């Protein structure tokens, strides 16, 4: 929708990893020109939908709510719904993340960064889950990723939600320093609780993250940090989703 602006690099990353991507504008859904269930993966890219003047992602979520049944069905079919940055904000507004207990209730918020400013920087995340999609590609890896957001600080409605998220192994990625020995600002650029960079739903197929793997698909898009990066973080990330999706339809 208007203000979404990371769609090109998202499109390219999907394409590079093997998908045949298509843009769906919210107007395409309204007019019936396109139908969510005709697709195998749904990616809600970053940006500033409707300007984020109210609360990041709130208006986009309100408009998508008209298609909540389709989204639920998509989810029930185990297909991947991925929200990056503003897309993560949209999924949390919709109650699709963390969605503990499958109640589709809004139970988290991506609050304004602790620094109270837009943060454009490179950081690292490590994989902290046993998610079926990312397990083989990400096990024990620390990866470089860029972030660029004002509202990315994960806060849950209450402690119980966080407990359930932990219980259900829903924390996918945590911000870390490069050697995995600690975090804190600026590695955790927004002050997220437990350094959370990305989470999934209980089933592991609805995924939200603030960092932008789609901006580092190739190694030449990364910051030179003295390590040889054979591939960009994005290639591992999107190939993992492609392989999972392919299996789903085999």
């Amino acid at each position: 929708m208007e203000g979404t602006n990371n769609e090109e690099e998202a499109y390219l990353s999907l394409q590079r990893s093997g998908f045949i991507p298509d843009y769906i504008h919210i107007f395409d859904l309204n007019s019936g020109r396109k139908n969510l269930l005709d697709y195998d993966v749904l990616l809600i890219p970053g940006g500033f939908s409707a300007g984020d003047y109210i609360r990041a992602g709130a208006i986009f979520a309100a408009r998508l709510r008209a298609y909540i049944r389709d989204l639920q069905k998509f989810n029930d079919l185990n297909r991947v719904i991925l929200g990056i940055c503003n897309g993560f904000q949209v999924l949390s507004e919709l109650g699709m993340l963390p969605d503990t207990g499958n109640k589709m209730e809004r139970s988290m918020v991506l609050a304004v960064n602790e620094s109270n400013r837009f943060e454009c920087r490179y950081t690292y995340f490590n994989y902290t889950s046993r998610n079926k999609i990312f397990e083989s590609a990400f096990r024990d890896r620390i990866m470089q990723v860029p972030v660029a957001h004002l509202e990315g600080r994960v806060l849950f409605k209450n402690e119980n939600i966080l407990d359930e998220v932990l219980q259900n192994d829903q924390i996918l990625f945590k911000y870390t320093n490069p050697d995995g020995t600690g975090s804190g600002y600026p590695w955790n650029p927004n002050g997220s609780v437990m350094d959370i960079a990305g989470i999934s739903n209980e089933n592991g197929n609805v995924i939200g993250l603030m960092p932008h793997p789609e901006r580092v698909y190739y190694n030449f898009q990364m910051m030179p940090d003295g390590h040889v990066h054979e591939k960009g973080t994005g290639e591992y990330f999107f190939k993992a989703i492609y392989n999972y999706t392919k299996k789903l339809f085999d």
Partner: protein
Amino acid sequence: MIELFNILDADDDNLKKMGNSLGLSLDEMIVLKNYFSGLKRNPEDIEIQAIAQAWSEHSCYKSSKIYLKRYFSGLKSPYTILTMEDDAAVVSFNEDYAYVVKMESHNHPSAVEPYGGAATGVGGIIRDVLCMGAQPVALIDSLYFGNPENTSGILTERFIINRVVAGIRDYGNRVGIPTVAGSVDFDDSYNTIPLVNAGCIGIVKKDKIVRSRVEKENDILIVCGGRTGRDGIHGVNFASKTLNENDSENRNAVQLGNPIIKEPLIHAILEINDLGIIDGMKDLGGGGFSSAVSELLYAGGLSGIINLDNVLLKDANMEPWEIWVSESQERMLLAMEEKNLKLADEIFKKWGIEYSVIGRTVKSDNLIITYKGKKILDMNLKFLTSGPVYARDYRPVSNNKSDIAIREPENYEKFIRDFISRPNICSRFNIVRQYDFTVRGCTITKPFTGFPNHETHSDASIIKPLENSMSGLSITSGSRGKIVSIDAYNGTMWVLAEAYKNTISSGSMPHSIIDALNFGNPENPETMFKFKESVRAISDFCRYMDLPLVSGNVSFYNQSKYGEIKPTPNILMIGIMDNIVKRITPDLKSTNSGLYVIGNIINTLAGSEYSEMFNAEYSYIPPVNLNDLKILMELLKNNREIINSAHDVSQGGLIMALLEMAFGGSIGIDADLSQIDGKLNEKLFSELGTAIVIEVKNGMEKAFEEKFKSVNPVRLGKTINNKIIIKNLGKVVINEEIDNLRHIWEHGLDKYI
């Protein structure tokens, strides 16, 4: 309010008064009186307003045109496609694609309303690139602020700095175009009158380039995007005079930007353009319809009939002349055949973009505007758009300052600590991290480079604009008012030389030059002289270096009650590289590699930050050795494989070049400056010369010395772990941990932003 201008009966006094309210001179009013006497009628208010904006300095370059023409004619290259003709320049990128580039000042609006002024500066420059049919891919901002401690204006400098940065951030980030390059400078002469120079680069398929002119008769004219309102009335007129303290009413002249209308507008325009049905396109910027419609038609040798009733308004009660000159944002003007409207309509609807057809092109000499069934403007289009041309007086600047030798600091180590925290020298993280410089995923060399969260400044940023090509464009932009103010010709040469050095140090080849010339009052002969000298330098540089000057912008009247700004010719240089994998960055790459300086460091502190600290004044700027620059470019291009990193010596001198190379990671420096000529303060702090510092790959030192022997390679030492050690003639100048120095440099702006 209807203003009646009875110019037929007015005497010179009255004409002068009327002229004052319109920003026109007496001579210009007399020309008008003669024109309407010939028609045997008085002008309608819309006619007078149309003239006032078309003849403003901002729109018709009446003070600068004569010099721009004299010096800038013919600065083209075989690879330039459109230069100095349309709304933005078009330059060949590869066989199929071209890049589009433009830079413009938005100084006056940013002085009265820093947030809105800076934001719409970005918005406007994006439209300039979009209207050539190009996808915008990168934004550039060169900013010049007053002394951050100054509080003498209506707004504090701190406020101006924060709001200008916020305006650029909020517009650029929301529209989703990365802000990848630029510069930030501080000087007392910009107190209360900041300079905001915004640039944009786009990429377009060569067969999809759209001209800023329409040559087809009976085409319809469409305006799309934002509605027309009272925001931004008379913007060009107030940008063409000196700002006064009580100019708060000027705030109405600053437009309101809306990036969330712009973002889908960009999609819609590019999709319509893909169909190949746009015959001509302009953005609505300064002067609104008045400029855009008149210029689109006149450039194509046509005229038009416009019906103002069809313009979609924000406020139904607008006067027709207000509609005509409103500078409301996010609007584009398209010409196409009527039969193609159906196709465009579908795309506008898909993106939720409002539009209306406001008129059509006709073969005639006169532009006609109707409103509520009445003809309210009927004027010869050539007369309306041409505007006057002035050959303003100029006079060489009398300069009787005598250069004095500056004393040396007693304790260099302590002095360097103070030096690296100065606003002009310290890191730009607090500003640039607020800009999204990675969106679109095509920024390869970012504004910072090195270990994440421990980066250093890059020389030039590099973008890779196409998915299917490894070629890249390098971007660097800036100016050096301090140096130019001493000698406008040689000073401007050094600004160009610095852009050139930034480009070649990043592994790229200089390809095109774009200027944004910011000066004081053109009615001051000394200012006019500096302007002329600056333009002459750009011309000489381009001719000698075989580089095209592809687009430019002039901003005069940058003056406050404290005086005029230092002359600030901002240079944006675009470089090209066949494969972005070959890029060079300044962060040191490994320990135990040889450190060299090549080129020369001139033994002068003229125009330097160091001289500023001692309040020393200079009258002489040495010339640039352009031939040496060319040789350096060839050598760097041909010997990429033996170079680990490179950084040019510029603002802050050799000391900053060395420190910044070490600040990008944990690799330090052990250097001895004894082999360099001059006094220690000149070696460390001179900002003039062709010098570039090179980290040579371990084991390749002999080969390097051999290959670079024509540019006087001096071995300074080698790279080491974690420390910075600099010695001179047996004495230690500084010996310190990298992180201790970097910390001071990193936090230099914390007090202000």
